């Protein structure tokens, strides 16, 4: 699966898909593969205010628990309720139906500080030591 170019990426493997002043956040295909079968996601409530780098929630796979961090600052406007019943959407469609939250961006230029798809791919190469 190639890394979508219309997203921006954090080193902790979350992506933001910006659309005006709304950012949709999920985890990357690499991250879901590393985690394995996702069985439970804990997400913030609508209205929660987050700063970039704040804990966004946690994601439990059969293997382990991982923390999620918000790559951007803003207010949560929507949470993907489908993940309650089908957390495996994160495994099967990380870029699409496996999204986690939508955030009203406090500062849309914050997104520009994150990695581009190309930069993220390079980052992955380095991280996995190829």
């Amino acid at each position, binding site marked *: 699966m190639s890394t979508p170019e219309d997203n921006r990426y954090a080193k902790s493997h979350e992506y933001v898909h910006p659309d005006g002043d709304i950012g949709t956040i999920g985890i990357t295909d690499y991250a879901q593969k590393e985690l*394995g079968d996702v*069985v439970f996601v804990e997400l913030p409530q609508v209205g929660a205010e987050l700063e970039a780098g704040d804990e966004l929630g946690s994601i439990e796979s059969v293997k382990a628990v991982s923390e999620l961090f918000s790559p951007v600052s803003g207010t949560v406007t929507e949470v993907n309720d489908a993940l309650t019943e089908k957390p495996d959407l994160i495994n099967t469609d990380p870029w699409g139906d496996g999204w986690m939250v939508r955030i009203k961006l406090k500062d849309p230029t914050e997104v520009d500080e994150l990695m581009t798809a190309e930069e993220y791919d390079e980052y992955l190469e380095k991280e996995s030591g190829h």
Partner: protein
Amino acid sequence: MADDSLKKTPLNQLEKDLGGSMVDFGGWELPVLYDGILKEHDAVRTSAGIFDVSHMGEITVRGPQALDLLQMATSNDVSKLDDGRAHYTGLLYPSGGFVDDILIYRMAADDYFLVVNASNTDKDFEWLQQAAAGLDVELKNVSPEYAQLAIQGPLAERILQPFVDTSLAAIKYYRFASTSACGAAAIVSRTGYTGEDGFEVYLAPEQAPHLMKSLVDAGAKPCGLGARDTLRLEAKMALYGNDIDETTTPLEADLGWIVKLDKGDFTGRDVLAKQAADGPRRKLVGFEMIDRGIARHGYPIVTDGEETGVVTSGTHSPSLKKAIGLAYLPLDESAHGTEIRVLIRGKETLARVVPTPFYKRAR
């Protein structure tokens, strides 16, 4: 993720070829999964899976006083074994705590084969050697001479049968045969760590890849450590280092059935006799989560803000489709139905003590 500092089993290359995601497991490079823990777990519950457990240690105990040594060093009654029979037992400290939890196979009245946890092999061997001082018994750490494969699941017998020269149907639970597999000498026992029917096969390292490959080709799904953990936890089988260790006794760990106080003296007996009479102050119990969340090893159990217990194992149970775990609790909080609170990342999360095992196969 090749790492040359890690020990490798004879199946290492085959596992990589089969697509295993390799991890460092106590200094061994082993697959945590191949194509997903849930799928591998399900294969073992419904058909058959194959695990490389060659990292496990093997120790032979031979000589006229082999039985005396094992009776003194372990909590189960070794005199009850006959040739071709194995049992699960505790190798104990004088405190009653576990040096290790092990299997003892009786090959002959003066010849025993011990299977021990990989990371405890050297410790167990030294402990047994000390205990053997003055006894006419010969101990050998034969771990490098054996690979071990576990084939587990309702189809295990059918899949394994063509490759071994003995009738598997004739091997009852916790019995074994010294036979051959793919033409090479092997010990085959009806044992396992999954709560499912199945076999464990001990054979020479150089023979192991051929047998594993044959079993995979015959339909056994390669399984990693991840599924091994969810399977054993559903069956409430203890994991040394998580659920039991040197600070926990078999009675606290709810393993009273491996403690035979009436067999005569053994190391740790005094402490266990007292615990049996007074009741242990804590007990290992199963719980399931009521609130959402998964309790993991080391998470505290709190009562009125005070830490009263600790989670030793916890996962999402693929068979039950809920979060389960094991925890040490004070005896008065350990009854089935008791609601407990697990501190998950700072949040008190409700769970309930339930009967175990969580999963029991239909027989």
